[in-house]
């Protein structure tokens, strides 16, 4: 029998400081997340310098907690996995420098992990039967990607956004209608009280590239709608607007995933990233997959948000492939999917 592999994952790419211990890439033994949302809310969005300062203060207690929740010490750990991109460079550097020193002093191998690949691997944490190949929609505040995971660690990008990320559109619209930050959960809650067919918003598409996304046109349409209502002195029905906007985003995402599944003959679709915890997105994806005979997987919301368990899972599969990072590992803020 193969020896069990315990990966300590460390994540600090944006505004969550996180550490986790995962057994054999699948079994979460601990998952600690220190969120900074309350602080960034004061500024209406993530302030990179403040995020980096918080990471430095939080990182040791978060790692210590992750080890103790798992009932382990560093001696029990097989390797350290750390997010080295994409993300905010100052924020990434805290996790990278910490993980390198920790692994170095504890004589452990180090594996640098792509944050986006980590999001995809969040699906392995609870869906034990899930294996590649499958299609994945990775949707967050910074990214909107439709990818095929062909094998562990092997990704093919089918489409991505040409302007705003889906989560970014949520944040901007939420700010415009006075719901504040973070936009995703606020729009989601507001939309539940509204009618998604009340207002007809455009579904953005890119001429000639069927799997790419565009959300800036939709965002502008929402802003125009608000301006016109203001000029006419009309009150906007906020729940209806939130529901109609959300329906337009979800429709763009879901229709392309289903179309790609049919073209590539994939029978599994998974979703990942912060926006994957949006209730309308989850429900619509589930319904459409069932209607098309496709198996649908999604992580629990706690594994959709930035976390280190997903980094440990991705790190496990990289580790198994023999991938090791050197002590000169650097943060790469614009690291692409499938890149090293």
């Amino acid at each position, binding site marked *: 029998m193969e020896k069990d592999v315990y990966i300590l994952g460390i994540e600090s790419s944006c505004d969550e400081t996180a550490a986790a211990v995962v057994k054999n890439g699948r079994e979460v033994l601990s998952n600690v997340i220190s969120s900074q949302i309350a602080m960034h809310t004061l500024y209406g969005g993530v302030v990179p310098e*403040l995020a980096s300062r918080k990471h430095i203060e939080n990182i040791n207690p978060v790692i210590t907690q992750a080890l103790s929740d798992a009932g382990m010490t560093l001696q029990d750990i097989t390797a350290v996995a750390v997010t080295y991109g994409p993300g905010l460079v100052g924020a990434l550097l805290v996790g990278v420098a910490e993980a390198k020193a920790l692994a170095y002093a504890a004589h452990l191998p180090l594996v640098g992990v792509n944050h986006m690949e980590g999001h995809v691997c969040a699906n392995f944490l609870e869906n034990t039967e899930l294996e590649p190949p499958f299609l994945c929609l990775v949707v967050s505040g910074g990214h909107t990607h439709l990818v095929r995971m062909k094998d562990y660690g092997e990704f093919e990008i089918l489409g991505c956004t040409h302007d705003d990320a889906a989560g970014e559109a949520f944040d901007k619209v939420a700010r415009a209608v006075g719901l504040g930050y973070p936009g995703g959960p606020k729009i989601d809650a507001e939309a539940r009280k509204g009618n998604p067919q009340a207002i007809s918003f455009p579904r953005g598409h890119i001429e000639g590239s069927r799997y790419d996304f565009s959300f800036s046109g939709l965002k502008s349409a929402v802003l125009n709608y608000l301006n016109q209502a203001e000029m006419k002195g009309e009150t906007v029905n906020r729940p209806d607007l939130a529901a109609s906007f959300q329906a337009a985003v979800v429709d763009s995402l879901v229709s392309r995933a289903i179309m790609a599944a049919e073209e590539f003959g994939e029978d599994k679709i998974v979703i990942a990233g912060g926006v994957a915890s949006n209730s309308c997105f989850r429900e619509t994806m589930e319904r459409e997959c069932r209607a098309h005979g496709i198996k649908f997987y999604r992580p629990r919301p706690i594994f959709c948000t930035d976390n280190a368990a997903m980094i440990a899972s991705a790190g496990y599969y990289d580790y198994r492939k023999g991938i090791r990072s050197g002590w000169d590992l650097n943060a790469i803020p614009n690291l692409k999917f499938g890149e090293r």
Partner: protein
Amino acid sequence: MKIIGIESASMTASVAIVDDEVILAEYTINHKKTHSQTLLPMLDEIVRMTELDLEDVDAIAISGGPGSFTGLRIGSATAKGLGLALDKPLIHIPTLEAMAYNFCGTEKLVCPMLDARRGQVFTAVYRVDGELPVAVMEPAVLDLEELLAELQKLGEKVIFLGDGVKVLKEKGLGSHVLSCQVAPPHLSRERAAAVAALGLLYMKAGDTVTAAEEKPEYLRVSQAERVRAEKLKAEAQG
């Protein structure tokens, strides 16, 4: 007693191992500012060269700021990671104090200065004729004119060092300061050996922190905080 010193507050990347009276090794680079790629490989190099068993290290002394925000955090996170894995304390050494310690023994005042951009420097003034540097002017971020006014008031001979000296020279200031002297190259920059050597004295005085507690001293709030504070102040007045 063995202490690892780490210095990455500005352009200089430096690591050292001090064993009581002896600097076992020091590795300093004043090249491009890619501390993330250089600092740990440099430490690994001197650890191997000196056949050091990391478990034998008593503490990690870290140059704790002020300086470049990112540079400080790379050094801090490196020290915190080492401290966590080795279960050893950290020693927080003010960056400017370690720089002044290069001139331990002189009768002159020592004024380290680091380029803080926007025409300002991170600076302090130390008297170093005793065992430990004593701040005559505490670390602060100042316009050069403000610093020179302070030095005029003190009216003593001064040695300048640090990359802030070039800002001074560019502005053509300093000539009116009474008998100032600029440090020669081998004493003019941050050095991890000074951080570790001072760390030894701090350690003996029981002045350590845990790896969890350690964080850089930035001496400057972030731009977002400054803008917000100004806005709130304007609102309160309006």
